[in-house]
């Protein structure tokens, strides 16, 4: 079995983020996590990294960021995304309002809502001048 933690420093473009997602999914797949866990992990990796590109780099400065994927081999997988952008807690935003008329619906905010839905817990902390976003996913099946 591969080591329990994968560390990645994706570039700041969409194709580089896509490569990081693919490598993370291959890593978790090789460690034997469930199909549902892989789905949730890929969703979280995609939504969290693109969120960093959108908000941490909103001032036009491309700052490097780091991704950690950890599997305890028993119960949980953790995905942590560290970035050096401005303090930004993605979980502070409310989910999109439900039940709006079709033509008034806006796509924003759905990605993080989905991560909340597929992951057991979602946390944020500002540490040493960096944002750290962590999600926890059950290895065996989805949480909700």
């Amino acid at each position, binding site marked *: 079995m591969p080591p329990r933690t994968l560390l990645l420093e994706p570039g700041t473009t*969409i194709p580089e983020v896509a490569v990081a997602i693919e490598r993370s999914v291959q890593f978790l797949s090789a460690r034997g996590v469930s199909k549902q866990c892989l789905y949730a992990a*890929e*969703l979280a990796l995609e*939504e969290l990294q693109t969120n960093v590109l959108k908000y941490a780099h909103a001032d036009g400065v491309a700052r490097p960021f780091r991704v950690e994927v950890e599997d305890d081999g028993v119960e949980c997988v953790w995905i942590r995304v560290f970035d050096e952008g401005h303090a930004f807690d993605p979980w502070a935003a409310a989910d999109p309002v439900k039940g709006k008329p079709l033509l008034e619906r806006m*796509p924003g905010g759905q*990605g993080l*809502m*989905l991560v909340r*839905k597929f992951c057991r817990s979602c946390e944020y902390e500002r540490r040493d001048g960096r944002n750290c976003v962590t999600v926890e996913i059950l290895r065996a099946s989805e949480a909700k």
Partner: protein
Amino acid sequence: MLLHDLGTKDGVSVVELNGHMGLTAVQEIEPAFKSATSSKGNNVVVDLRGVDYISSFGVRLFLDVIQELEKKGKKMVFVAPTSDVQKVLIACEMDTMAGIEADQPSAIARLRA
């Protein structure tokens, strides 16, 4: 990600999607998907049996097309999403904006009713 434009059946445009509907795939198929769906002015069936993954980027594309169809008085129905894909669609309320049916004939019948 593969898109098959199956043309028109009983006046309904039918499109089949296969593969992984993630960030980069959605960017790749967006023009062809819009051309096969909202551009034609028909009701639309989107067969999702072969889609094993969708994120908010795919949902965004569907929302965009459903809103375009709505402006033309047309609707979309999805066919047979896998359980995880269906969970995403329902979480994003896509089931209230477009129908979900078990197979293509049922989806076409629903749009012709």
